[in-house]
């Protein structure tokens, strides 16, 4: 009997300890080695009102090159604001979202938190973060921010975060492989992007299963379990002319399951299951190792290549071109920003820090350190290299064809629905109508839970 009780209580213990563990967030980071730059000298508002020293906590996911940039900006900030101390904590990348959410749930979040643009609406909708419009009106230089950036950080007419940088993805191609097969190189003009069919045509010629070479890898990290996958997959839907949600954001029915979506998914299915030019399992560093001929990546890829594959050179071995297009030319945008939690007792001081890092001068330091795509026009104007190849492709594509992910508190459901949709069709070779119905239902459920 005693033994049975023991086993039973073991069963209780075992099932009670479900849940918990860690989360992945991923998405783009940036990449850079700490370069040299002047500390920001910003004419922001003068330091706080009292002599008391205020300590602000600030959490961000851990990413070495960006952490270095933050440390530099924090040092210069504390120097010019002696009454404010920043307690900077880096959380391991795959635990960041879980940690921030449990801290919010437990009522002890940091004063300032980093967030990926599409998660903003969930936090704002639950009033976990505060609107920054008054601050932006005072000294935030909002007019200087690029339009898609502002759009991606605005929920319910209010802006809830200040962007560290912007992000988008473009096409990378292995120049030597193109030349070997006598394929004409794609244009570097963002208005003359290759169509899906042009890319597929090239990919079929480049595909070489015997050598383990895939023609076309259409998503930067392959079929991963985090935001990195839907980031690039959504572009296919939009390019075909489809939308994910209705303009009022209330439903996906009639939008995500449109004929245009079906066209995009049919094309996607063929890449992996018909023509088989795309890898179902993306090997590590496939493009840099010559295992993928056409690839897609963010601006941080250049620094990654320099550090890890110094002999694989831009202009010789590979080049970049604007992202592909179909009925429309569109590149997904959105990256990380900083928000102030409603829990913070010192929102004014928190804004001073946020504005120091993301303001006109801070953005320049950030760009120099991380080489991420700037979110401010003034930063674009300040660096000649942003007007030159290859960064100009990112910059021009962003300005002309950038498209933020939907800003809605239902985004977590959307992100997962899109990710699973493309997995079902790409990896599972599933029926497109069934998969779309499943995705629409998931999003509808997500929207319904918000308004019980």
């Amino acid at each position: 009997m005693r033994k049975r009780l023991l086993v039973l209580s073991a069963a209780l213990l075992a099932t009670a300890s479900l849940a918990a563990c860690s989360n992945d967030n991923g998405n783009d980071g940036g990449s850079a080695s700490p370069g040299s730059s002047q500390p920001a000298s910003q004419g922001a508002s003068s330091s706080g009102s009292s002599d008391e020293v205020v300590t602000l906590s600030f959490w961000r996911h851990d990413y070495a090159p960006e952490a270095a940039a933050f440390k530099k900006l924090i040092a210069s900030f504390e120097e010019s604001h002696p009454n404010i101390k920043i307690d900077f904590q880096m959380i391991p990348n795959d635990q960041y979202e879980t940690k921030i959410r449990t801290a919010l749930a437990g009522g002890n979040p940091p004063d300032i938190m980093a967030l990926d643009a599409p998660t903003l609406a969930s936090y704002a909708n639950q009033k976990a973060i505060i609107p920054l419009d008054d601050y932006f009106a005072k000294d935030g230089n909002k007019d200087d921010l690029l339009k898609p950036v502002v759009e991606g950080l605005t929920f319910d007419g209010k802006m809830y975060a200040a962007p560290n940088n912007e992000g988008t993805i473009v096409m990378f191609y292995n120049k030597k492989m193109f030349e070997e097969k006598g394929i004409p190189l794609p244009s570097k003009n963002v208005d003359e992007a290759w169509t899906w069919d042009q890319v597929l045509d090239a990919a079929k010629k480049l595909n070489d299963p015997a050598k383990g070479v895939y023609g076309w890898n259409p998503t930067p990290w392959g079929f991963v379990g985090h935001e990195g996958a839907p980031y690039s997959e959504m572009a296919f839907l939009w390019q075909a002319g489809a939308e994910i949600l209705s303009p009022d954001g209330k439903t996906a029915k009639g939008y995500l399951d449109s004929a245009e979506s079906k066209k995009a998914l049919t094309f996607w299915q063929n890449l992996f299951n018909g023509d088989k030019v795309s890898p179902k399992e993306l090997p590590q560093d496939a493009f840099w190792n010559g295992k993928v001929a056409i690839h897609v990546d963010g601006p941080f890829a250049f620094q990654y290549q320099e550090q890890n594959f110094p002999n694989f050179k831009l202009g010789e071995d590979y080049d970049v071109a604007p992202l592909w297009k179909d009925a429309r030319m569109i590149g997904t945008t959105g990256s990380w920003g900083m928000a102030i939690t409603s829990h913070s007792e010192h929102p004014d001081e928190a804004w001073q820090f946020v504005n120091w890092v993301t303001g006109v001068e801070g953005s320049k330091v950030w760009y120099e350190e991380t080489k991420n795509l700037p979110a401010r026009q003034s930063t674009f104007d300040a660096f000649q290299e942003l007007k030159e190849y290859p960064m100009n492709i990112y910059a021009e594509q962003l300005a002309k064809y950038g498209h933020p992910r939907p800003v809605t508190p239902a985004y977590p459901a959307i992100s997962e629905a899109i990710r699973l949709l493309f997995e079902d069709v790409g990896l599972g070779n599933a029926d497109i109508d069934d998969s779309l119905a499943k995705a629409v239902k998931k999003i509808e459920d997500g929207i319904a839970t918000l308004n019980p």
Partner: protein
Amino acid sequence: MRGYRSAIYEKQESRAAFLFILPAFALLAVFIFYPMLHAFVISFQNYNLIAAEHSWSGLANYRKLFSDETFGASLWHSFYFTLVVLPVQTAISLGLALLVQKKFRGVGFFRTVYFVPVAVSFAVASTIFRLIYNKDYGMLNAVLKGIGLPALDFLSNPDISMLGIIVLCIWRAMGFVMVIFLAGLNNIPDSLYEAAHVDGANAVQRFFLVTLPLLKRTMAFVVIITTMDALKIFIPIYITTSGGPAGSTSTVVHFIYETAFKQMNMGYAAAAAFLFFFLVLIISIVQLRVFRTDVEY
């Protein structure tokens, strides 16, 4: 007088017993029973993980679970995993235990080798298996290709992905179960085998008529522990496949994790956790009944 004294003594004894139980009970109460109770309450609410206020939803969360295909699929994945792991892992472990129970030179080496995977962190093992399983460049497929067999795409083929997880889990757990069986085997007196031998029982008969019946208690422990561990499998799935490809390895715990922390729908996740908890409880009770044993030795 005597009776009075013994009453006092008994009172003191039971008070002492209570004091001994108290620390463990207090810990259980604070860290297990209270959170469970709280989670049970949450399962009847519309509870967004980060929202400040929550409204009551009655049985809506539970009702929704019964029509949720994703939850249904995750339940099936968990049970499929368990139905395969339970017999296969138990058989392999018992086989290993029988092998290494024999006394011969170097037996310690084999016992250690079989036990080593248990000492490897599950996260590390999962990460390494992910590399081994890679379709184009993984070691497994390099070997298969070398001997002229078709490649196994455990990470991208929804039809076989769960088998990849199963292999990983059995590889890691079999050493532990083997040690438990070994202890059980060593508890069986030699005299019984000798008696069976004298009666003319051959090796197979001795195994089925002596070893197995006398291992019933050990077997009960192994079966119940394996079942519970298998049903709540999470770490290797989280690390190797994230529930993919195409949701084919999303188990119940993975579903609960995704719902609670990614979708931030804590109420729904709590309801799923409780439904699952009762399922596991029922299974454990049934297993205990089945394995009830009167055999003493």
